[in-house]
């Protein structure tokens, strides 16, 4: 009993071939879309490369690009098969390829599902990577004269302005490191000397933040220095001031941004999976219908199309038997083994007899 059998007249076969040709070109466009999505995501990740410690998250766009390219190729092949399907002389040469094509199509769908799963699973790794990267970025903010780190300041400033965030977790991260380079500190000043001596590592720590933390929406001009001292500024209360600086941390801001990007691509990827599956099923119907038609005496007549020749259990049993057969080829057959063993013994005796006379002589 074939699985999901359908009858196909000549006209229906032609319509199926035409529809599948259009669908496979649609699937080629979807493949191109997936590829472009992968490229876009990769570029966005590379732009903020400097504040990310490791590149585990790059697996998502890499996989998207690979699947996009493979999908373009596979669906282009599908469209060629459709074009040849109604021509009895040209269709048979594709027969060998089709089984491989089904495997590739199923693999592509599985990979796309894996991408969706990965984009959620790697969120933790992304956060970790951002935490370490931002911590280093903030530590090296002042090193604008060290080769390899001279643009760290500009990177962090632009990041904070673009993503409207301050520091790693919040703005207090800036209180814990020295972000003013020693080149711009007057070591003869008493104030500077006091600050440096006030902590163990001899760092110049301030309760101030860089200008890029300032929130333009604040009604008052930005207060950057002496933030914890409510008396240092007129009409300023440290605990209740909310709009002066950005309250979000950059790690949170960046994670939200990337998760938002990947979530918004989720529906697109799922619909591409659906389109690919429908191409797969239609191709199977077309193949079986055209094969059935070619086997008939009158090629114009009705034929049957199905997904599997027998039902699921019977097909599974058949596939298992075939696989075991293949494995048995490698093993030696027990009956012939005995006969072969006897022959081997005889041959061994003969060679032994041939070997013994020489010592006697």
């Amino acid at each position, binding site marked *: 009993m074939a699985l999901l059998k359908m009858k196909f007249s000549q006209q229906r076969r032609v319509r199926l071939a035409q529809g599948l040709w259009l669908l496979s070109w649609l699937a080629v466009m979807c493949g191109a879309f997936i590829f472009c999505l992968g490229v876009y995501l990769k570029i966005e990740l590379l732009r903020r490369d400097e504040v990310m410690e490791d590149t585990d998250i790059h697996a998502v766009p890499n996989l998207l690009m690979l699947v996009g390219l493979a999908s373009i190729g596979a669906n282009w092949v599908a469209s060629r098969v459709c074009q040849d399907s109604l021509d009895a002389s040209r269709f048979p040469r594709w027969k060998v390829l089709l089984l491989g094509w089904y495997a590739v199509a199923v693999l592509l769908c599985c990979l796309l599902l894996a991408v969706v799963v990965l984009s959620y699973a790697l969120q933790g790794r992304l956060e970790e990577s951002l935490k370490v990267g931002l911590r280093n970025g903030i530590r090296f903010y002042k090193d604008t004269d060290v080769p390899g780190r001279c643009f760290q300041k500009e990177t962090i400033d632009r990041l904070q302005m673009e993503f409207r965030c301050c520091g790693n977790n919040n703005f207090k991260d800036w209180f814990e490191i020295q972000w003013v380079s020693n080149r711009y500190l007057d070591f003869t000043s008493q104030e500077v000397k006091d600050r440096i001596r006030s902590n163990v590592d001899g760092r110049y720590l301030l309760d101030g933040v860089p200008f890029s933390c300032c929130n333009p929406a604040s*009604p008052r001009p930005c207060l950057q220095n002496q933030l914890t001292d409510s008396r240092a500024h007129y009409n300023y209360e440290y605990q209740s001031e909310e709009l002066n600086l950005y309250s979000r941390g950059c790690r949170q801001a960046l994670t939200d941004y990337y998760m938002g990007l990947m979530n918004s691509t989720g529906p697109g990827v799922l619909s591409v999976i659906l389109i690919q599956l429908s191409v797969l099923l239609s191709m199977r119907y077309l193949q079986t219908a055209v094969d059935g038609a070619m086997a008939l005496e009158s090629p114009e007549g009705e034929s049957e199309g199905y997904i599997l020749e027998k039902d699921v259990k019977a097909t599974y049993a058949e596939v298992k038997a075939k696989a075991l057969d293949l494995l048995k080829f490698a093993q030696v057959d027990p009956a012939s083994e005995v006969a072969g063993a006897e022959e081997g013994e005889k041959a061994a005796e003969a060679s032994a007899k041939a070997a013994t006379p020489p010592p006697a002589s």
Partner: protein
Amino acid sequence: MPFLSLKFNLQKRVKLAQGLWMLYWLAVIVGIILFSLGIFFKIELRKRSEIMDNNESHLVPNLLILVGMLSCGLNAFGGKLCHDSLDPQKFSKMKPMLRPYMLLCCGFNVLLLLLVLLSFLMQFAVYLTLAEGLKNAIRFYKDTDTPGRCFMKRTLDMTQIEFRCCGNNNFRDWFEVQWISNRYLDMSNDVVKDRVLSNVEGKYLMDSVPFSCCNPGSPRPCIQHHLTNNSAHYDYDHRTEELNIWNRGCRQAVFSYYSGIMNSIGALLIFTIVLEAGDVAGLKYLSTALETMADPENPECESEGWLLEKGFKETLADLLSKVKTFGRANQVEEGGASPDADAT
């Protein structure tokens, strides 16, 4: 002697019709691009209308939107004309519409030319509006509690950050206005009182700039306050310091952005004019080639196509005489008046 006449056989006529059809559809796409460019420009003007005092002129984007829609409509109709032209029945139905359509296209080209001129000349208006608007924006920067101006600070800060500029002409514009609201000034403080009393209008003026003037590319943390006082900061000379804050004025920066948009609109419009002129010329050739077929029943026959029926000078003379007779139709003729006079 027809002006620029060419001979056409069937194959050439078919090729002309096909080529013209593609050209018309290219013109439709260009019309769509013009439409979207008009919308983009309108949105960009709206986004920054606060720093232009809300009286910027939307003439160019509005006309561009209109022109884009007209172009789509006219060229789609032209494409349909080409498509039907090789079918003699459909062509004879379309013939009366050809002349008014071509006149309409010529009028449309004149409109496009006008728009090109506008898009180059209106840049002066944008410049002047920006100058005035930015001056007011800097003055109202501190008024975050005045209804109608509460977002001026945010808008100006975002503009300075986005366009990497400071002040109107340069950063010294900030020294001339009070940009800190009185709500945040401790009037009992001596320093504040000195500053307020030191100028005629009682404004709290400083040699400082807002944080949005800071340049992130500077190697040192931003110096915003006491900019002209070298001794206020370690290792600082205000005459040689270049990277600390943005040097460019916002008027220049924003104007070059808008000027770039308007110049590219002008260039695209010039391309559109050339395309439209080519379309009209091609349509004239096609219609005359189809009309002058010696034997209408035989599609294979040869025909001639031209741009103008008589030569260029003769056509001009014809037009002038037509215009003159049009004016004379209202005058009473002298010969007609006297028989009446004789009769009475």
